[in-house]
């Protein structure tokens, strides 16, 4: 039932949390199969924690969009839905920010090789917008390990809604 939870490597506390409560920090570590249901559970847990800490609505929305896109990228474009390949997720959430790392077991990619989906010639193409949304909505975004690992940070502040 709790597919994501059963695969979780918790460092202590319940629900993968080191400490609970709005003053401490939550630390989540998950390893899940390349599976949308498991991904959904992980997202619910991370978003649930961010929500409980009373993040500003815009920051919450940003994390929700970026996390969803990052998980889809890892499962679909990274691991190509291979059941044996895992997605590793680590999230540290405080009252001030959410730091999330997602690593897949795919071949990796070069950021520069992804075409800009906002160019007029690409506007009618159906893909390529996930990375754009992650970069637009998060405060810090970095791909390492040949593009297999994504580290992204969102600060909890009433920032202006990003514009493209």
């Amino acid at each position, binding site marked *: 039932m709790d597919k994501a939870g059963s695969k979780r490597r918790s460092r202590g506390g319940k629900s993968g949390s080191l400490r609970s409560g709005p003053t401490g920090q939550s630390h989540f570590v998950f390893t899940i199969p390349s599976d949308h249901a498991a991904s959904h559970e992980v997202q619910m847990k991370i978003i649930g924690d961010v929500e409980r800490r009373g993040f500003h609505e815009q920051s919450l929305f940003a994390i929700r969009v970026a996390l969803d896109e990052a998980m889809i990228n890892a499962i679909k474009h990274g691991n190509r839905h291979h059941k044996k390949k895992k997605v590793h997720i680590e999230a540290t959430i405080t009252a001030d920010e959410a730091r999330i790392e997602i690593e897949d077991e795919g071949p990796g990619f070069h950021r520069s090789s992804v075409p800009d989906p906002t160019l007029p010639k690409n*506007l009618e193409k*159906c893909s390529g*917008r996930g990375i*754009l949304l992650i970069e637009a909505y998060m405060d810090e975004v970095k791909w390492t390990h040949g593009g297999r690992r994504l580290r992204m940070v969102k600060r909890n502040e009433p920032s202006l*809604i990003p514009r*493209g």
Partner: protein
Amino acid sequence: MAESTPPISVTTQKDIRIVEFTNNKILDEGNITDIGATLKALIEEGSPPKLLLDFANVDHLSSAALGMLINANNEVKKKDGKLRLTNIKPQIFEVFVITKLNKLFKIKPTRSDALNSFDE
């Protein structure tokens, strides 16, 4: 993950098919496939198709859902039809702005604006 209610409802006003998303997250891959298939069927039956998508209930939109909408737009164009989007909440509209898809789609603030725009 199965949704207890269908992700969209379809009504008709004159020759315009009005599609309302009943799920607040057009997010789940299964949902997107279902919605895409329904839109495709609606586009195929119209001659030419006139389609209005109402986003009043939508709180989250993924890039996969945007891809599905672009696909629908391309199909409508192929049949010389018209596609309008309406009632998009500000946060969701920002997703269209960031991706510059607000330039691709004809987005109207209210349903009546959108319905009237089919005669333009």
